[in-house]
C-alpha cells in the first residue's frame, strides 16, 4: 500500500489546501460554556438545578444512542434497558457489596458493556426492521426481569436509599454540585463523540450507515464496528444510568419502559442522525418544553404527537436539516478549499 503518494498525472496541479472552520467544535465549546454558566445564573433555584440535571442526563442518554442509530445506522429500541441495567447494577453494587458510588459506577460501565457485546453479537446480524423488533423484545425482557426478580431487584418496590457519590472525600450533594458532576459527564461524552466524528472511526461509521456493501468494499470491518459501537453506546447509557440512580436516590422498574426507549430514539431522529449538536438541542427541547407546557398538560401528549408527525413529514432530516449553516449540525467537516479561491464558499 503506497498511501499519500499522489497520482503522477496531477502532481503539478495539486492545490494547497486551506482547512475549513470546524463549526461543530465551536458549537460544542459554546454549549460547554452555557452548561457551566447556568449554575452561576440559576444556582440558587433547586428547581432549575433539578431541571438541569434531568436535561443533562437525558442528553447524555440521547447522545449515546446517537452513536448507534445516528452515526452507524441500526435502530435500537432497547436503550432504556441499558440505562436501567446501569442504574440497577450501580445501586446494587454500591449498597449490597458495599463498593460505594465509584465501585457501582465502574461496575455499571463494565456490566452494560459486556451485556451490549453479548446482545449485540447476535442481534446486529439482523437487518432493518428485524433488528428494531429484536430490540423491542430486549427492552421488554429487561423491564420484565427487573419487575420479577424480586430477590435481586426488590421487584416493583425498587431500590431505595442509594447514596450520593463522593469525590476526594467530598459528598456530591443535590443542587449545584451534582449538576456540575452530570454536566462534566455530558461534556466527556460530547468530547468523545466529537473526536470520533473527526477521525477515521467516524467516517467509517457513516459509511456503514450510508451503504453497507460499499463500506465493505472500501475496507470497513462492518460487523465488528457495529458490535463495538453497540457495546460502547451500552456502556455510556449504563454510566448515565448510574448517575441517575445516585442522583434520584431510589429507582423502580417503571421508569425504564419502552416509552423512554422510544423517546430517546425520537430525540435522535428529531435532532438529525449523527448530528451531535442537533441531538443536544432536541434533547434539551424535549425535556424543557414539557415543563413549560404544563398549563396545557391535558393536551400535551396531543401537541407532542402532532409536532412529531409534522416534523417527520416536513423535516425528515430533523433539526440538522433546518440549520442555516450547513456544517454546524453535520457530523462531517466541510471539505478543505484550495488556497487562493477556486472552490465554493459555504453559506
Amino acid at each position, binding site marked *: 500500500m503506497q*498511501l*499519500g503518494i499522489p*497520482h503522477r498525472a496531477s502532481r503539478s496541479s495539486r492545490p494547497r489546501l486551506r482547512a475549513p472552520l470546524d463549526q461543530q467544535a465551536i458549537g460544542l465549546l459554546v454549549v460547554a460554556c452555557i452548561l457551566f454558566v447556568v449554575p452561576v445564573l440559576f444556582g440558587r433555584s433547586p428547581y432549575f438545578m433539578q431541571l438541569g440535571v434531568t436535561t443533562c442526563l437525558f442528553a447524555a442518554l440521547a447522545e449515546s444512542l446517537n452513536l448507534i442509530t445516528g452515526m452507524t445506522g441500526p435502530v435500537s429500541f432497547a436503550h432504556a434497558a441499558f440505562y436501567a441495567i446501569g442504574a440497577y447494577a450501580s445501586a446494587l453494587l454500591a449498597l449490597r457489596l458495599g463498593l460505594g458510588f465509584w465501585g457501582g459506577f465502574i461496575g455499571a460501565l463494565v456490566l452494560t458493556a459486556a451485556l451490549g457485546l453479548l446482545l449485540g453479537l447476535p442481534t446486529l446480524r439482523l437487518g432493518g426492521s428485524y433488528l428494531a423488533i429484536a430490540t423491542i423484545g430486549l427492552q421488554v425482557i429487561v423491564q420484565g426481569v427487573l419487575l420479577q426478580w424480586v430477590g435481586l431487584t426488590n421487584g416493583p418496590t425498587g431500590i431505595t436509599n442509594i447514596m450520593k457519590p463522593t469525590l476526594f472525600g467530598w459528598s456530591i450533594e443535590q443542587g449545584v454540585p451534582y449538576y456540575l458532576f452530570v454536566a462534566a459527564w455530558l461534556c466527556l461524552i460530547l468530547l468523545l463523540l466529537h473526536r470520533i466524528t473527526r477521525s*477515521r472511526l467516524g467516517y467509517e461509521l457513516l459509511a456503514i450507515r450510508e451503504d453497507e456493501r460499499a463500506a465493505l*468494499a472500501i*475496507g*470497513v470491518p462492518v460487523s465488528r464496528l457495529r458490535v463495538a459501537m453497540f457495546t460502547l453506546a451500552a456502556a455510556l447509557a449504563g454510566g448515565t444510568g448510574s448517575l441517575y440512580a445516585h442522583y434520584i436516590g431510589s429507582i423502580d422498574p417503571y421508569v425504564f419502559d419502552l416509552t423512554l426507549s422510544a423517546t430517546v430514539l425520537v430525540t435522535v431522529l428529531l435532532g438529525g442522525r449523527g448530528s451531535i449538536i442537533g441531538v443536544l438541542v432536541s434533547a434539551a427541547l424535549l425535556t424543557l418544553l414539557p415543563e413549560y407546557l404544563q398549563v396545557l398538560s391535558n393536551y400535551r401528549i396531543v401537541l407532542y404527537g402532532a409536532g412529531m408527525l409534522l416534523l417527520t413529514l416536513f423535516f425528515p432530516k430533523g433539526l440538522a436539516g433546518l440549520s442555516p449553516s450547513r456544517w454546524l449540525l453535520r457530523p*462531517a467537516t466541510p471539505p478543505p478549499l484550495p488556497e487562493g479561491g477556486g*472552490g465554493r464558499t459555504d453559506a
Partner: protein
Amino acid sequence: MLEVTGLSKHFGGVQALQDVTFSIAAGEVAGLIGPNGAGKTTCFNVIAGALSPSSGTVRFRGGQITGWSADRISHLGLGRTFQNIAIFPELTVWDNVYAAALTHMRSGYLAGIAGLSHVRREQRALEDRVWTTLELVGLSGDGHLMSSQLPYGHQRRLEIARALVTSPQLVLLDEPTAGMNAQETANVMDLIRMLRGEHTFLVIEHDMRVVMGICDHIIVLDNGRKIADGSPSQVQQDEGVIKAYLGGELIDEPVG
C-alpha cells in the same frame, strides 16, 4: 496479479458461474464481457469477497484470498465500483472519497480519536490525495455537493474516485460508462488509459467501442462459462463469441 481457478457459484439451482478460470497480469486492462446474465457481476462479487464461491479458488497478488471478507480484500489492494451505483448518498462528494482514504490510513482508531499529531499529519496528506483524485475524475469543483444530488454520470465517476483513492493494485469497474454520454465515456476511457501501469484494471462493459478501445485482454462469459479469452482481435474473430453475441439476436433458434 489475479488468478481465478475453477470458480463456480450457484444460487440454489441456478448455476451463475461454472468452472471459470482466467488470470490477469499486472498492468493489464482486462475486459470481462458477455451477454446479460452471463455471470459477470457474480464473478466480480466473488473476486472482491462480496460472495463466497461454491468451489474454486481466487489468488490475488500471489496469495489465496478465496472466502476472505470484502473489507480484508480491500486492504490487500483491491478497489471496486458497483453496477447499480453504491455511493454514500447523505454524504458530500468530498466525504465519500475521504471516508475511503481514511479507511486505508496507517494510524488506528484510537490514535485518531486522541488526535495525535502524526495522525493529523497523515489526515492532511490524505486530504491532498482526495483532492487530486477528485480532480482526476473531474469532480474537484463539486466537493461540497451532497452526492445524492449529482447526476448519474457524475455518481459513477465519484465511485471510480472512491475506488482509486486507496491506491489499489487491482481495480474492478462494473460498467463504468453505463448511462454516460459520449463525452463522459471518452473521459473515462482516457482516465483508464492514463492510469494503466499504476493500477491493473478488470472492467465489465457492454459498449464494445469502449471494450475494444481500452482493453488489451478480454475474457468472454456466456451462461456462467468462459467461452473465450485473448486479445481483442482474437476474441472478435472467435466463433463461439460471435454465436453468443450475434446468435442470440439473429438466429434465435439454434442457440439454446
